[in-house]
């Protein structure tokens, strides 16, 4: 491909990847790396597992680009489905990794100037991650696709190959459970406890 830019559509890039174009593959990998890792992070529970999943997903894309059929839908939806399938396979082979994973915690540290605030944010993120880990797989995946990847319910239905009603049900049950598990962080007045703690810490 002559002119690859950050605006080149995924489908064009995939056509180039089919012809062995490594530059097109790099653009795709850079563009979608965090999306794939988000699925790994939420489903598998650690930054390392997310990295491993991303590596496997992109390796498969490079080795078998023909598996993507543009006539059947958008690349990003197909990619999310591939990542979700592989993550689910891994999850069934091995139970989730412990959430007190030190490296994950280090990577969660926000480079904020206030170390105390950064630590609190990291702790809160780990509580959220622990709560998400308690959801059944499909609810976890639906929450990830909606909140982390920003997909609409219709798009999630296409990715999961199910109905919009089923997605709404998955999300509703997932959100209700999360509110219950995170009731210390989400209070009925809608204020995040951590947000208040942070404010108090700065005062």
């Amino acid at each position, binding site marked *: 491909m002559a002119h690859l830019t950050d605006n080149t559509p995924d489908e064009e890039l995939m056509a180039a990847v089919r012809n062995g174009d490594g530059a097109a593959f790099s653009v795709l990998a850079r563009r979608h790396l965090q999306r794939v890792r988000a699925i790994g992070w939420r489903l598998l529970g650690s930054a390392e597992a997310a990295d491993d999943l991303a590596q496997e997903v992109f390796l498969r894309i490079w080795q078998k680009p023909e598996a993507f059929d543009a006539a059947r839908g958008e690349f990003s939806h197909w990619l999310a489905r591939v990542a979700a399938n592989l993550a689910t396979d891994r999850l069934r082979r091995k139970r989730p990794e412990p959430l007190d994973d030190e490296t994950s915690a280090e990577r969660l540290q926000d480079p904020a100037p206030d170390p105390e605030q950064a630590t609190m944010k990291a702790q809160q993120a780990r509580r959220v991650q622990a709560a998400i880990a308690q959801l059944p797989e499909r609810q976890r995946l639906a929450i990830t696709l909606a909140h982390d990847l920003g997909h609409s319910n219709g798009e999630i239905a296409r990715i999961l190959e199910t109905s919009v009603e089923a997605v709404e049900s998955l*999300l509703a049950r997932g959100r209700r459970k999360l509110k219950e598990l995170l009731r210390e962080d989400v209070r009925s007045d809608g204020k995040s406890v951590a947000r208040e703690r942070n404010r108090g810490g700065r005062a």
Partner: protein
Amino acid sequence: MMNDGTREMNLEEFRQLLDAHGADMGRWPAKVRAPAQALLLESEEARALLAEARALDDLLRASAVPEPAEDLLARIEAVADASSAREAPRHADELRGAKEQPGHEPVVMHPAAVRGRHARPAPWWMAVPIAASLLLGVWLGLSGALAPVEEVLLADAGDELELILELAAEPDGEEL
């Protein structure tokens, strides 16, 4: 019925919409937005529910995926750099299977499997040891010299069975 012709919304319907679509009302179906806004104007409880849903959204946003390992992209790109090692074109059957099952297909076939596809038929005498093994197996089974098959399978499949029971206990009961 409201003045603009839309049906009034009650608190339970509002709660269900929040659970199904999240706090961002831009993601809600267009036809329910006006009744939801009307309810928000008159109900403090509805406003509290919306605030709670927003707090959950904030929490999820704040716990976004951590940064990747520094060398992850380089590792992935190195795969493409080694493009000269890539096989092409591939077997049509493998490609068809891959399209049907994204994410589940074995990408790199084991060399033995590839060889097996194209191997010539084995000579007849190679069947002799196989037949002998079969006969021995039948004799052992009939004589009761071995533990019942179910026990052996269950003992081997202990972990698998535990996982299956766990999955079956999930309220979803759905498969990807």
